[in-house]
């Protein structure tokens, strides 16, 4: 821009298209993969790491099964979001809900130096529902019938969270994390008129993904039909920051000069 001051009569009417942010809410360090305290399914407990029982390398089901090689370390390689997720909905009770579906890809190192890639929840099974060639880990979030998810819930001052596993055929396709919170949590608060605006749009940003793993100990898990299989108990938690913005498109007219 030139250093000279342009007189007001040189100004012109300029129409600008922009998006006005009506409200914003940022959640820091949200744990999106967890398990409730054992025995508490009420949603009032505390988040605990998800306990995975990763099948030892070389372990096979049996009455007196071979121990195989236990897990030495676990690394999260990738978190893949299901297409069209995360998404946002406004509920009838004037709350907003963020729904996120994702899968995790873990790189597992065993004591014998072997490495394996595990896709969760696709290769997860319930204890007692071992599927040869498919099951790489067991988890308590799947009911004993091996077909349905046991949702984990958490309620805290108006906000509620739910974690479930989405079934697909005989296996599971994704974790589904839901975060529901009142609309007055937005900053600034969203008015009812703004809420009914047919042009209302939202954007969700998931950032700063990080995780915690803890190798516990080798343990036998029921594999079904009276057999057992050797696994290694591993605790896993995933955290991230979740930001959601609500806004509307705006055409605004200003008086001024545009850069040539």
């Amino acid at each position, binding site marked *: 821009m030139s250093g000279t001051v342009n007189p007001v009569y040189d100004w012109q009417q300029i129409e600008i298209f922009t998006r006005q942010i009506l409200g914003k809410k940022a959640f820091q360090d949200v744990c999106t993969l967890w398990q409730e305290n054992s025995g508490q399914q009420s949603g009032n407990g505390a988040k605990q790491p998800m306990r995975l029982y990763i099948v030892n390398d070389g372990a096979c089901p049996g009455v007196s099964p071979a121990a195989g090689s236990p897990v030495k370390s676990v690394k999260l390689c990738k978190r893949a*979001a299901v297409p069209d997720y995360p998404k946002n*909905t406004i509920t009838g009770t004037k709350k907003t809900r963020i729904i996120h579906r994702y899968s995790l890809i873990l790189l597992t190192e065993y004591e014998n130096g072997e490495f394996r890639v595990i896709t969760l929840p696709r290769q997860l099974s319930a204890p007692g529902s071992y599927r040869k060639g498919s099951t790489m880990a067991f988890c308590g979030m799947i009911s004993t019938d091996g077909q349905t998810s046991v949702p984990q819930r958490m309620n805290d001052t108006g906000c509620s969270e739910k974690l479930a596993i989405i079934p697909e055929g005989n296996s599971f396709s994704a974790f589904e994390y839901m975060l529901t919170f009142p609309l007055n949590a937005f900053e600034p608060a969203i008015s009812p008129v703004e809420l009914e605006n047919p042009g209302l749009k*939202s*954007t969700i940003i998931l950032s700063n993904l*990080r995780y915690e793993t803890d190798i516990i100990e080798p343990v036998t898990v029921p594999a079904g039909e009276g057999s057992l299989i050797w696994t290694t108990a591993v605790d896993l938690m995933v955290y991230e920051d979740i930001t959601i913005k609500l806004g509307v498109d705006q055409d605004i007219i200003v008086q001024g000069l545009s850069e040539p």
Partner: protein
Amino acid sequence: MKGFSCPDIDTGWKPVIHEDSQNARADRPSLIDNVDEDKHAEYDMPATDAQIREILRMLGEIQREIASLKQMIKGMDISCRVPEGRKGKPRKRRLAKKLTAWGEVDHVRNGEPSI
């Protein structure tokens, strides 16, 4: 806690979905079944707008039906007998007749004002 080189996920700006209007659509399919869904998607209008549009369309149809009924009535030769109104005079006469029969008033018969 381990850092993880995972790219951030940004959904971009998308229209907000109202769960209640979704349920309403599921509960009342007949009302908006005829709405052009492609058009609806094209303009990104929420279901409430589609319902308003449907109501307006139905109102338009009702208006057209009323107009056609009017035309039909105009074309028909409907002649109604105009009821003969009972004028005051005969009634007054009858009343006066009754009253004089009872011997209560005389001025009614003479047509004088009843002050």
